[in-house]
């Protein structure tokens, strides 16, 4: 595999070059970005990132202590960071998808590169950010009250249930791998079951999905209410303490 390391001539770049060479890759290392590589690894922002239409582009921010090059994550296929804090900063402050930000060491980099160039990399740390922050965000902030840990745990369980609420196999398509007549077979199979699926099974399951979602909403409202009551109780106890003093 042809790899190019760009963006810096520091010791960090030399270390990455060595690592890739040990894997048996043909590695070049300079600020000039050559054509035809399978992998481009940047140790900081580089204007070539804005126009690379081939290969795999990795932005290595493990040595960027203040995440100065964070805006360049937009142009990378994946991004490497050195700590959970950096990862959270890229997700929360800059709004990047958590799935393509990887926490790696030099030992795990080789495996990651292998999978990434084959597009066989599982997403890193899939999260549901919008929902996690949304309906119960304020009520679910941890406090130092004894019950808050359970509340947070309940909220997390609720998120899990919510993810499973939709029981439909939405992405499922009837397919056949038989050459030439495969589409015909798939069409026949689809139409053999459609009289059951369309008027009966699908509506029934959709109703179940709606019930599941309603239940989750009701539980969430109860949880919010519980959190609110806990906050009020804490406030009340605090007032009582001050009154006592």
């Amino acid at each position, binding site marked *: 595999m042809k790899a190019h390391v760009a963006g810096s001539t520091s010791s960090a770049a030399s270390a990455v070059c060595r690592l890739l060479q040990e894997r048996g890759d043909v590695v070049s290392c300079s600020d000039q*970005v*050559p*054509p*035809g*590589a399978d992998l481009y690894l940047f140790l900081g922002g580089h204007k*070539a990132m*804005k*126009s*690379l*239409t*081939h*290969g*795999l*582009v990795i932005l290595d921010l493990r040595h960027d202590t203040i995440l100065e090059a964070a*805006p360049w994550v*937009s*142009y*990378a*296929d994946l991004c490497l960071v050195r700590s959970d804090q950096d990862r959270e900063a890229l997700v929360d*402050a*800059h*709004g990047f*998808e958590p*799935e*393509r930000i990887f926490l790696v060491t030099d030992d795990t980099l080789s495996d990651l590169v292998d999978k990434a*160039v084959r*597009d066989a990399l599982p*997403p890193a740390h*899939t999260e*549901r*950010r*919008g*929902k996690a*922050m*949304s*309906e119960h*965000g*304020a009520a679910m902030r941890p406090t130092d009250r004894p019950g808050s840990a359970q509340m947070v745990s309940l909220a997390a369980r609720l998120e899990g249930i919510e*993810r499973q609420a*939709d029981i439909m*196999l*939405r*992405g499922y398509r009837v397919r056949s791998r038989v050459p030439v007549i495969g589409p015909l077979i798939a069409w026949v199979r689809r139409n053999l079951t*459609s009289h059951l699926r*369309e*008027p009966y099974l*699908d*509506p029934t399951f*959709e109703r179940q999905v709606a019930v599941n979602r309603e239940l989750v909403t009701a539980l969430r409202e109860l949880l*919010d209410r519980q959190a609110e009551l806990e906050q009020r109780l804490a406030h009340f106890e605090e007032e009582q303490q001050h009154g006592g003093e």
Partner: protein
Amino acid sequence: MRFLHVTQRYPPAIGGAEKYIADLSEELVQRGHQVDVFTSRALDFYTWKNELPRLEHLNGVNVYRFSAMRRRAWVWSILHFGLRHYWHTRSRWYEPFIFFGGGPLAPGMLWATLARGRRYDLIHLSCLVYGHVAYGYWAARRLGVPVVVTPHAHARQQDTYNLGYQRDVMFGCDHVIAVTPAERDLFLDLGLDPWRVSVAGNGLRPDDYPGGQQATARRRFGLPDEGFTVLFLGRKSDYKGLDVALEAYAVLQRQGLPMSFLAVGPETDYSQALWPRYQGLPGLTVLGAVSDEEKLAALAACDCLVLPSIGEAFGIVFLEAWLMGKPVIGARVPAVSSVIDDGQDGWLAVPGDASDLAACIARLVADPDLARRMGARGRDKVLRRYTVPRITDRVEGIYLRALRRRQRASGSHDGQPATRSLEQDQ
């Protein structure tokens, strides 16, 4: 590089999705790309009436407009028939009715995409709820050109993203661009691959929001110089939460807080029915549709923006308020929660709960410093994440990632240059 944007309408037609694609197209042109837009000639989506010229060059963007079939009453009936039966049966037999009734049906646009699509490096489809996305996608797939889509889905309206052919488009596209993390979650719940769904967001140009003298702006609307002014800004539809905002204001008025309320935005039947209930409420000023300049003055005049809407896909008005240094209060629904950081740059109130909203406003009235700090944090956030150049960075990055994934899948780049520029294309 060369990009084709296929969209249902383009400015001067008004709308969030229209502004999004126009800002994006113009910024890409400024960066040296060539951008053509295929769209309808309509100003409004109720009729798809062909009013606009067939070809325009707008700020460097070539806008090709195609005649679409008029959406008359019988076409609307077909749409409603399709939707009614589709949601009951989930049968794909009803999808053609929805496709036909939704429009815009512009055969010229399909033909032009098929005939000229190969000239472009990538095709970007915008606004999944309309039919142009379906035939734009079909043409792109037929030609083998990489294609991405910005669905602009509303979580509460499944017909904006969850019809069979809409799911087919999203599953088949090289990349799906969401405007909020909540919208992305929605797509991941549908089963889309997390690698192919990214968040870009909406953006503004900070120079368009120069700020202004609060006292002067208040005099313009006849508002008192002193006291706290709450602004409601948006179309006064039922889901926008105007009733909740007014109820919260009435609660605070009863508590004797020195306040005024400015409601700005186009009236609807719903709002007209609402006003008699709040007639005589002290300090209430109501304006209908206003110009951009009046909108800026209203934002300058207020102390906070309140929009407890439960149906926002993004809520660009929050960004506008922040750019003017004002704190905001929205409803705790997924899309808005993705934009407002509760307690940092605004508050999230319980949807439909006037007393919770009143409590949020009261906190800002009681602590003007907090309000200022929240407004300043909001402005910093917009400058960091929600400007047109920042959003364009994200979309440009998504284009490149989609192109690279295609190249990796085909496994061949022999003789290909490392980078592509407009000069090389020409």
